[in-house]
Structures are given as C-alpha cells and as structure tokens.
C-alpha cells in the first residue's frame, strides 16, 4: 500500500469516528427539553401537586357525591377521620372534604380558567400591537399599560364596589389584569422578533401578515407567554382567596377556600382543621403553579440555565 493510500485510509476512518462522536453528542431539541424537565425536580414536584389538585377539583365533588351545602346540626366541628366525614365538618355540620373539593374547583376556574382565556386575548392583543406598530400599538399599548399597573386586589375591590360582591367582579378583574400583563410582555417580544432576519425574509417572500404572525411569530412567543401565564395564575388564586376571605368574593352557600378559612378562624381552638385544611389547599395550589412556572422558565429559557442548574444541584 502506498503512503498516500495509507494516509487516506486513516483520514476516512478518523472522519467516521468523528461522525459517530457527533451523533452520540447530538440530542434532538425536544428530547433535550424533556431531559431538562426530568432533571428539574421542582418542576416534577410542582406538576405532580398540580395534577393532584386538578384531580381533586374536577373529580372530588363527583366521587364523593355529597352536597356541599347540606347541613347537619348533630355533626358540627368534627375533626378529620370522623365517621362519615373524611376531613371533618364545620360549624354548620357541612362536610369539609366536599367543600374543599368544590373550593379548589372554584379557585381553578377563576384563576386558571380565566387566565387561560386571558392568555389567548393577551397574545392576540400583544401581537396586534407589536406587529402593526402605529395607532393600534398606541391604543392597545396605552390601555394595557394603564391596566397593568394596578394591583389585582384593588381592581377587584373596585369592581365589587361597582357591581356588588360575588365571583363575577373577581373574574372580571383577573381577566382584565392578566390579559394586560400578558399582552404587555407579548408586545415587547414581538417588537424584538419583527426586527429579526427571518421575519424580514418572510415579508420579502410576500407572505400575508396573518401567515407571518401565525406561522413565524406565534411559535416564538408561546413559551414566554406560558411561563408568564403560570405566574399570573398563582397571583389570581391568591387574589380570589383573599377577596373571598374578606367577604367580597364567592358568596355563601357556594364555598371558596378563602371564605372557608375565614369561617373557620373563629373556631381555631375548637377545631382548627376548619381553617387549616382549606388553607393548606390554597398553599398547595399556589405552590404547584409557581413551581411549574419557575420550572418551565428554566426549561424554555436557556439564558437562565445556570439558575436552573443551581436548583438541580441542591
């Protein structure tokens, strides 16, 4: 074999080794994301708690089958694990378990349900404002900046002042403030995106505005919008509970976690479970949503990965 052939053979075999090495190193983006999710213990813990709470809110009332408003004056202030009352009963002899399940359902509908709608509205408004600039930006941007600056609880109290107390003003406040908050961030993201080459290329390619927004901009803003939405779900859960606690939210007989904590606080010495059980439920709801939000941010936002690594190593 000549020197030249021998060298050529070595080169080819080396290149094969390199290709093999690179294949081993390469992880598809989706799998890498799943890997990061799996390594993020807090995200896993948050998701597990979240699924548990979702299950309790959706199926709890159905499975237990009882009536959340049914009273029984023989069975008041029962501790958990009492006969017929898994989590005990309150001062009117109502089943705490079923009331907690319904309370979780109310929290989830007001906070998560309304924020999901706000996510859609916020993304659409933010995209329109950020994409078209001009008057639509000034109009939407102005309103959004105006609403965004207000604390959710104050807005809800103001609505309750105008509309009377109940869940409706709370829902309205959550919807409005969260839409504005999401729209605000989406608008900023779209601003930066529209200056990127691939958007300019799409313009040059003669695509319609709708197609550019739908196919090119939307996929790029979904991740930050979701992360933000999960944060605002937590804020909304707390706000709904707090408003119900001071009597401006859900009205009896419909139970709400905040209202149950308030009802139970006069009986802390007799049976503290009447306050602690709904209280723990609120904390678990908020915790799961915030952990999911933090975890998603770590997974989606590689700029902050060193932060995520810090969490992993703890």
């Amino acid at each position, binding site marked *: 074999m000549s020197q030249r052939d021998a060298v050529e053979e070595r080169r080819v075999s080396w290149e094969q080794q390199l290709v093999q090495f690179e294949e081993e190193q390469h992880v598809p983006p989706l799998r890498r994301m799943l890997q990061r999710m799996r390594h993020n213990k807090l995200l896993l813990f948050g998701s597990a708690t979240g699924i548990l709470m979702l299950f309790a809110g959706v199926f709890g009332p159905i499975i237990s089958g009882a009536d959340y408003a049914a009273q029984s004056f023989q069975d008041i202030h029962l501790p958990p694990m009492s006969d017929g009352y898994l989590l005990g009963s309150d001062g009117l002899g109502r089943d705490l378990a079923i009331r907690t399940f319904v309370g979780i359902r109310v929290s989830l509908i007001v906070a998560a349900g309304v924020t999901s709608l706000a996510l859609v509205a916020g993304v659409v408004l933010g995209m329109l404002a950020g994409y078209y600039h001009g008057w639509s930006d000034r109009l939407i941007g102005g309103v959004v900046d105006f609403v965004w600056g207000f604390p959710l*609880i*104050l807005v809800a*109290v103001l609505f309750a002042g105008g509309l009377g*107390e109940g869940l409706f003003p709370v829902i309205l406040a959550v919807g409005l403030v969260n839409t504005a908050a999401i729209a605000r961030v989406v608008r900023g993201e779209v601003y930066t995106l529209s200056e990127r080459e691939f958007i300019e290329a799409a313009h040059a390619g003669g695509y319609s505005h709708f197609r550019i927004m739908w196919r090119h901009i939307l996929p790029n803003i979904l991740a930050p919008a979701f992360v933000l939405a999960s944060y605002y779900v*937590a804020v909304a859960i707390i706000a709904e509970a707090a408003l119900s606690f001071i009597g*401006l939210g859900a009205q009896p007989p419909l139970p709400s976690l905040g209202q149950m*904590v308030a009802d139970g606080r006069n009986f802390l010495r007799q049976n503290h479970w009447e306050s602690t059980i709904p209280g723990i439920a609120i*904390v678990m709801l*908020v915790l799961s949503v915030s952990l999911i939000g933090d975890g998603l941010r770590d997974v989606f936002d590689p700029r902050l990965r060193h932060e995520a690594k810090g969490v992993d190593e703890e």
Partner: protein
Amino acid sequence: MRRIAGRTIYTLIVLFVSSIAVFYAIRLSGGDAIAARLPASATVEQREAFRELIGLNDPIHEQYLNYIGGVLSGDLGKSLTNNADIFDMLLEHGLNSFILGATAFGLVFIIGVPLGMLAAVRRNSWVDSSVMTFAVGGMAIPNFWLALLAVWLFASTLGWLPSAGCCSPNQLILPAIVLAMEGIALTVRMTRSAMLENIEQDFVRTLRAGGLSEKRIVGKHVFRNALVPIISLAGLRIGQIIGYALVVEVIFGWPGLGQVLVNAVLRRDYPVAQFFSLVLITIVVLSNWLADVGYTVANPRLRKA
C-alpha cells in the same frame, strides 16, 4: 429628562381617565344602592326626592364636575353609614395606612435585599437553599393565611404580641410583616438573580484585572448594578402593598384606607367607596410614575437619553 416629562404627562392623563371611570362605575350602580338604603316603607316619591337631593338626576357629566369641584374645595360629603365627614376620615385613616404601608415598604428592602445578596454570595450552599425555600414559601402562602398563622402563634399561643388593633408599635409588628412578606420574597429572588447575572458580566473581569478584591467587586460594583432592577421596580412594590393592605388591614383591624374602602363596599356606602377608590388609585398611579422616575435615576444609561 424627556422620558420623565413624558411619563408625567401620561400619568396625569391616566389619573383623569381613572377618576372618570371610577366615578361612573360607582355612581351608576351606587345610585340604586342608596335607594335601597331607604326604609322599605319609603314611597316612590320619597325615593325620587332623595335621588334629587343628592343630585343623582342631574346629567352625569355635571355630577362629575360637581364632584371634582367638591373634592378640590375639600367638601367631600359624609358617610352614609355613620355620617362621619369624609375629609376627617381621610386624615385619620390615611395616617394609619401610611404608617403601616411605609413600615412594610421599608421591611421589603431592609430584609429582602440583604437576604438575596447572601443567597447569591453563598450560591448553592445550604444558606442559599434555605433562603430560597423561604422565598418560595413567602410567595406561595397567601397573606391572609399567613396572618392567621401569625396571630395564632404569636398572639393566641405565645401571647407575645396583640392580635389586632391600632396603633402601638406592638400592634404594628404583625400586620407590617405580613404585608411585607410577598414583597420580601420577590425582592430576595430578584436580588439573587440580578447579582448572579451581573457577576458574569464582562465588566467584572475588567475590575478583577484591575486588581480589586472579590469582596469589593461583589459588594460594590455587582451590587450597585443589581440594584438597578430592584430600584426600578420599587414603585410596583408600593402598588402591591396597597392591594394587599385591603386584606391585611381588615384582618388585623387596622383602621386604614383599605379597611375603610372594603367596609364601604360591603355596606354600600357609596360616597366613601367612591372617594377612597379614587385615593387609592391616585396613590397607585403616582407610585407607578415614581417607578418610572426611579428606573431612570437608577440607570445612568437612561439619564441623559
């Protein structure tokens, strides 16, 4: 400076728009609420006369102008429930709220910033993880629930502090801490991540190359850079504190603006609800303005832009 001037004009417009919005919203629904306050035996004529008396039958923009005129001349009307003068209520409850709010606002930074720095400096140690666990907890526990636990522990069980009332320093401690808790948690997280982000910036390498000690670089330069977002968002913390004050004041029986507003809404005392809504909105809008000014002042890059 142009930036600050622009934000000031914007703030004035926002104030004007929100005063109209609050006025219309509460006046429109509040009118029937007053009518509902008259005894059930009142005749239609008596109700009509009452509406006429308090001006509900005038065109609504006239009502607005009359109202704003009244506000500006110090004539705010009286409460429908206890006939108290609203201006006196503002002075008394305003001061109480200011004491509580200012204490909580101070605590947010006095506790939050050093804890966040500590967590950043001792990154990935047990100190860091305990501080961060505390911060996650502080954000997840709703403050009314925290209030209840605090009262239960420090007032009912240990008997160290009073559970409610106003306005001795002892009575201030629990509501101020509860009110500050979420702000503290947020500030801890923000300080920590801002410190960690800035410590990786190129300018830190330049200062190291300049022979400065690590302590000085982190304690002075990195810290000063990390303060930029924290100062910028201080105005937002005010807004948040006002929002939560509505709840915390009610729980601790702290007679401030928030408690007055919530009670007025619950009792349909519309002149009080209307005025105090306007007061709180004004404070929030002004603090947002302050946030903008703070951002400009904290960040030299924007100062002369």
